C-alpha cells in the first residue's frame, strides 16, 4: 500500500472509533471540572429570561 492508501485505511478505522463517546457527558464533565454552572446557561437561555438562543453549532477542529 502506498502512504495515502495507508492513511485512508487508518482513517476509516478511526472514523468508527471517533464517534464512540457521549459528547454531552463529556461537556458536563468539563463544565464541572472548570467550575462552570450548567444551570446558568439553561436559565439564561430560557424563554422566561427573554432569550431563545439555539445551542451553538459544533466546530470542526
Amino acid at each position, binding site marked *: 500500500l502506498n502512504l495515502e492508501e495507508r492513511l485512508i485505511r487508518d482513517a476509516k478505522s478511526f472514523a468508527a472509533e471517533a464517534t464512540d463517546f457521549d459528547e454531552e457527558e463529556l461537556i458536563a464533565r468539563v463544565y464541572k471540572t*472548570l467550575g462552570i454552572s450548567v444551570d446558568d446557561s439553561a436559565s439564561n437561555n430560557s424563554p422566561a429570561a427573554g432569550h431563545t438562543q439555539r445551542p451553538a453549532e459544533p466546530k470542526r477542529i
Partner: protein
Amino acid sequence: MIDIPWDRDRIEFIKTEVRTCTGAMYQYARFLCRDRRLAEDITQNAWVTIFKSLANPDQSTPSVEGANESAAAAIHEPIRNFKAYARRCVFNAFVDYLRAAGTRTGIGEVLLPEDEGHRIFRIDDKASEIVSSLDLRNALLQLDEEDRALVYLKYYKGYETAEAALEATGLTGSAAYRRHKAVLRRLRELLTTEEASD
C-alpha cells in the same frame, strides 16, 4: 474544580467554546491516543490548560481567530486561532500523559488501540495490517503540530487539501499544495526509518 473569579462575559465565552469545541477536541485526542477513556481525560486536561491560560494575562496565549468577538475582547490576550490553540493544548496534554511517571516513557511509543490488542495474537493475517497501522500512528506523532494537523484534517476529517492546509498552516494557493506534498514526504521518511529499524 478550578476556582478562578471570572466576569460574566468570560464565563459565557468559555461556556460557548466548551460546548462547540469539546467534541472536536475529543476526536483529536482520540486520533492521538486511540483510547476512549484516555481521550476524555486528555480533553478535560486540555480544557484546564485553556481555562488557566485565559485567566492569566501574564501567560503567553496565542491569538484566536473566529472567537466570540465581545467575549474575546474581554480576554487579556485575544486568541486569534482558537482551533489551532485547542489542538496544541490537546497534543500537549497527550504528551504530558506519555511523560507521566509510571505510565509511558516517551512520544515515540504508540498506545495499542483498546480493541486491537487481542487481535494481534488471534488473527495472524491481521497482524501485519495492525503493525503497519501502529507504525503509521507513531510516525504521525513525530510530525510537528502543523503538519500533523494538516494530515489529520485532510485524511481523518475529510477536508480538501487547500482547506486543511489553510486551517493547519495558514497557507493558501500553491504553497498549500507544496506543504501537503512536503508533509507526505516527511511521513514517508519517518515510516522508512521505522520499518528499517524493525
